[in-house]
């Protein structure tokens, strides 16, 4: 089995930068995109439990060559239904 391409999912939030030093073994850019969304939802759900949600953040997806192949902002990862 061929090794899967390595993607880095770097995290930028209003409190700082968390580099992805190890990287993620994901099949392609589309899988990396899905994983970025899953990660943001995971981060935001923890925030909601703590009573505060900050949408000022993004995950920057970088491929094995160092090229940025996607930027997902926190607000893109969830659908907001405004209160009526």
């Amino acid at each position, binding site marked *: 089995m061929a090794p899967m391409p390595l993607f880095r999912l770097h995290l930028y939030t209003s409190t700082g930068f*968390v580099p992805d030093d190890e990287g993620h073994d994901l099949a392609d850019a589309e899988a990396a995109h899905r994983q970025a969304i899953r990660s943001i939802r995971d981060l935001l759900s923890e925030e909601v439990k703590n009573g505060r949600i900050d949408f000022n953040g993004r995950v920057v997806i970088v491929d094995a060559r160092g090229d940025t192949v996607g930027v997902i902002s926190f607000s893109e990862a969830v659908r907001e239904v405004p209160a009526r």
Partner: protein
Amino acid sequence: MIDKHILKLRARDDIGAEEETAIRGAVKDVVRLPADSVVVRAFEPMDYSTILVSGLACRQKDLRDGRRQITELHVAGDFTDLHSFTLKYLEHDIATLSDCRFAIVPHDRLREITERFPHLARVYWFATNLDAAIHREWSVSLGRRSALARMAHLFCELYVRLDLVELTHDGGYDLPLTQAELADTLGMTAVHANRTLQELRSLAHVEFARGRVSISDFDALKRVAEFNPAYLYLDRRAR
């Protein structure tokens, strides 16, 4: 070969010389497996159990969408699947997280030594009860603890378990886990685990890098985790 296992048993009870000889004699073979191997596959009939001699292994369950939950980590000296002796198959996989060596203990030899030494039957009954206690603590972690406390708790637990088998040194221990594997253990994504690590580093001065956990302030880490080691039943008494 199974010195760590004997060390772990002796931390909680007296094991006589004859009993020790019987346990060592129950080992039929020792096998080496590279990292990321499945040692025992769920639902396969089992007629032997395995003692982890060296390395890091886990119990895990896969979900259909490709995610997995690591439900327990095993360190050297652990009987990784003693429960298959009575269950006859496992409903989960046992997998290696690093290069591992396992001692193979056939079930018929386990039956033999536990019949010859009823005390060993109780010692191994205790061992499966201890596993259950660890699982309960992990349920609390996964169900109720914050990401930060959950990670801190795991690092505390592993310190205590590895210290029993003399695998801690210089205020830390080797933990050959990738960030993705750590995340699968803690029920979160690797990005979340990464950020939680950064938070824990600034709050409790814990480092997890290049497969090693370094704890410079164990009390601070215990406070974040609300760690009470009583569930690891560390007292030595007749079982």
